[in-house]
């Protein structure tokens, strides 16, 4: 399973620069778990996992631009 960005913008793994990432490899997630923020037009959009499982990989580096539909995380189901 993949978690994709619903919109284009800048991908942030943390809620604030001094805080820990929302999730990392091994983190359990549920459908409503916030896994990242994507910023566009000065708005910060929370990306939800949308699935249940464990984060298996992080596909994009922090603060990189992403396109809509781009894979952000891979998830091991279960």
């Amino acid at each position: 399973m993949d978690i994709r960005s619903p919109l284009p913008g800048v991908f942030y793994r943390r809620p604030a620069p001094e805080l820990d990432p929302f999730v990392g490899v091994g983190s359990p997630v549920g459908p409503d778990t916030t896994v990242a923020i994507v910023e566009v037009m000065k708005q910060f959009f929370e990306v939800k996992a949308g699935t249940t499982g464990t984060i298996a990989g992080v596909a994009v580096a922090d603060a990189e631009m992403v396109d809509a539909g781009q894979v952000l995380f891979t998830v091991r189901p279960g």
Partner: protein
Amino acid sequence: MAVSVLNPGLSTTVQDAGRPGYYNVGIPPSGSLDQYSSLAANLLVGNGEDAAVLECTYMGPELRFERPATVAVTGADLPPRLGGEPRPTWESFGVEAGDVLSFDFLRSGARAYLAVSGGFDVPVMLGSRSTYALGALGGVEGRALAAGDELPVGDADGAAPGRSVPEALRSTHPKHREIRVMMGLYDHRLTGEGRRAFLDAEWRLTTLADRTGFRYRGAALEFRERVAPFGAGSDPSNIVDAPYPIGSIQIPGGVEPIVLHRDAVSGGGYVMVATVISADMDDVAQSAPNSTTRFVEVDLDGALGARRRRAARLDALREAVG
């Protein structure tokens, strides 16, 4: 009330053909940024050309229809779903009372247009239903849609579903674009090197791209030495305040050019090195962050020729769909 907003998307606004005639007092034309796609959506559902549509930026809303209607989605490739089932773009389809319309992720472009038969019937302000959010004017209470909004829809004669825009008349949205500009009025402030850099650079659209302006990154432009005239700021990119045409490209500090679009501010003190020709403003509207653009210089004849070809394409659209 005919359409309920379950989820507004990122920034969804009511727009129409615009509110021309008040820019001299600071109220911009507003209206759909991609006028071609907006017109196509109205034609597909049998609306007049001045009917209001929804402009959906990067993400689609989730809407529930409270009565039957014909709808169409054009512009960006933002795939619609009705009750979870895929529906086409650039083609009208029917909805029944209680149906929920949602959207998949954006595939290309930036702004999708959703028309409903009868048009979104918000109050007309200064001759237009368009939302100008900076001025809290038009649309739904002068703002983007919010969850819980109830959108009124006008009475429709009702075009039957199934109208379609021929393939050749559908917009496509490449990741790289060439946008035509006329140089000026202030390109004399650039050095020869600065001017070349402006036209040679591959400009990448930043996330600061909204209805007011589109900000790009990609090169630093060199200005000529000068003594700042009275009334101008000290930075070489400052001028004595001047009116800003829609499409003008200002470049604060010589970096990050900004193309002003239909919600622009009407004047200010930044040098405008070039202006996007009117025929290419729809393409600017469909540029998404991280896509790239090269600005290509044309002369006045080139710009007017492009305007005529765009008018012919609009007529071809009316002929094929209307």
